[in-house]
């Protein structure tokens, strides 16, 4: 179906300047130089994942426009309606309703919104915390490095879910509390990754040269160490986002995430689960499928980014 895209991408005009050229629409590029585009255009799965993610993000952003019914509106007269195409279904409830007559479709769309909000904010926070601490650890060495890295060790030795559960159990459910707790449990991986890259980059000759040119620690930290260690951070973020989404859904499923009045995929699954075996499968299966598509798409994109940005890891994996 998308063969034409691939066809465009693969039209090689033979060696030019020693490198084979490829074309996308009217734009010529060399696969070796434009690896991000090339790896994207040569994989259907990546293209599909990007399409799915864009679709889901657009839905989430436009939720108030798209959804037919207020997601928290309970219509007891329309309890446990099956999806529209099934016998007994109502066209206004596309994917049916739950035990209290809430529209499943609307809940999914709003749930996606919460998932994406929680994931982006908490990943962004943990990225900022982890990046700064990792940078300090890698640059300063000595006492600060030991202090930060031991904290990382402790953090990584505790199961995330356990820490998050304890925190939420003590302070109660809440959207921003959850974003905070997910940010706090996520920083350690960033700190460790960044410190590792910084340690290897600080030995590079260009950092030595920068010191010899008299540049100060701030310039060296940001313009030399930070920018050159950003690639693994991008890749790690692509892995962390779906992880956080799942964690959020898990906490909400256990009733310790967002407040019960907030539409959330985890909450929807939990509610549907109660009536799953009485035949109303749609109330938890559809939110589950939405969750799966969301995390699946981001994971595929993460793989693509890794292949595109760190070709060595791909070669090392022998793929």
């Amino acid at each position: 179906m998308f063969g034409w895209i691939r066809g465009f991408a693969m039209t090689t005009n033979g060696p030019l300047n020693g490198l084979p050229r490829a074309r996308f629409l009217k734009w010529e590029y060399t696969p070796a130089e434009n690896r991000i585009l090339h790896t994207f255009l040569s994989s259907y799965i990546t293209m599909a994942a990007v399409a799915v993610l864009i679709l889901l993000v657009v839905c989430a952003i436009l939720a108030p426009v798209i959804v037919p019914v207020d997601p928290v509106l309970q219509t007891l007269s329309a309890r446990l309606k099956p999806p529209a195409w099934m016998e007994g279904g109502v066209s206004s409830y596309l994917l049916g309703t739950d035990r209290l007559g809430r529209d499943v479709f609307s809940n999914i769309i709003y749930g996606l919104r919460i998932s994406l909000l929680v994931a982006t904010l908490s990943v962004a926070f943990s990225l900022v915390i982890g990046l700064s601490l990792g940078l300090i650890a890698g640059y300063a060495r000595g006492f600060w490095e030991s202090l930060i890295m031991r904290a990382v060790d402790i953090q990584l030795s505790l199961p995330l879910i356990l820490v998050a559960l304890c925190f939420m159990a003590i302070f109660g459910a809440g959207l921003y509390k959850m974003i905070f707790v997910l940010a706090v449990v996520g920083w350690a991986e960033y700190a460790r990754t960044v410190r590792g890259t910084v340690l290897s980059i600080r030995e590079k000759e260009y950092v030595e040269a920068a010191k010899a040119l008299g540049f100060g620690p701030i310039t060296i930290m940001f313009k030399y160490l930070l920018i050159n260690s950003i690639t693994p951070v991008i890749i790690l973020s692509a892995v962390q986002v779906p992880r956080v989404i799942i964690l959020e859904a898990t906490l909400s499923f256990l009733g310790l995430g967002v407040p019960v009045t907030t539409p959330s995929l985890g909450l929807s699954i939990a509610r549907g689960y109660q009536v799953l075996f009485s035949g109303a499968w749609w109330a938890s299966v559809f939110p589950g499928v939405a969750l799966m598509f969301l995390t699946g798409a981001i994971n595929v994109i993460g793989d693509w980014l890794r292949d595109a940005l760190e070709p060595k890891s791909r070669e090392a994996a022998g793929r």
Partner: protein
Amino acid sequence: MRSDELLKIDDLHIHFHTLLGTVKAVNGVRLKLRQGSTLGVVGESGSGKSVMAMSLLQLIPMPPGKLVAGRALFYGKDLLQMTVPEIREVRGNRISMIFQEPMTSLNPVFTIGDQIGESFRFHRGFNKTDAVKKSVEMLEMVGIPAPQKRIKEYPHQLSGGMRQRAMIAMALSCEPDILIADEPTTALDVTVQAQILDLMKIFQDRIHMGIIMITHNLGVIAETADDVIVMYCGRIVESADVDQIFHNPLHPYTRMLLQSIPRLFIEGVRGHDRLKEIPGMVPGLHELPRGCDFHPRCNQTEPACRKHAPELREVEPGHFVACDLVK
């Protein structure tokens, strides 16, 4: 103290504390650099020449490094005792350094223009447009064609020679008093080497800077240096002006070094001679031999050489040798 004396290193000792023991990387080096002259520092790998140079800008990580003794007077101020802000003011501004690997000495994520401009902005407080203008000028001066276009390019788009020129442009942007060139031409091919050396000479004449040329290539020394010091195991074994070193080498090590230069044609010999080499290896710096450091490899060793280390002494005006056998 002579008025044209730029830098004077006095009895410099730098040690590294490692698991294998204390490594005496620089062991009592003394040297002087005159304004507008080039001091060649020759030695095999591990002879301490780079450590000596880097220590001048306090670029040796301490620990594991340790400044045991010594002074490096630059206009009467000791570089080794300067505070961090003071030495940072010197780095890149008064004393610049260029490195061996032009392929890796530029930050891969910024354009050439940004990187040269950074130096102007940092040391001279230039704004962005002025920095760009100056960068173009500098690139033009170091002989990079189409500098307007080149400043927008990234290091990976330039050849090795171009990158070394860009490095030189960065290092010379603030017209330093001293340029430390740590094997600046080792990674370049021969024709480019000559161009880079010429370029450094041109700048030296223009801004009258002193150059410390660190290399293991005696050809480069012959080409550029006014004075030469030969280092072995962290010590100076011979020090003289370039003519004396090449025409009247006195230390056995210097002689053997000169004999081990490959030659295409030697008068009277038709290519059947085996290239002479110096037998053995540079000893590990943590297990230096007793007595003269060089005696295990020397072709003139006498029993006395094993007993005590020779002092550097003046055997003829301006010619210092650390060998007791030299009369």
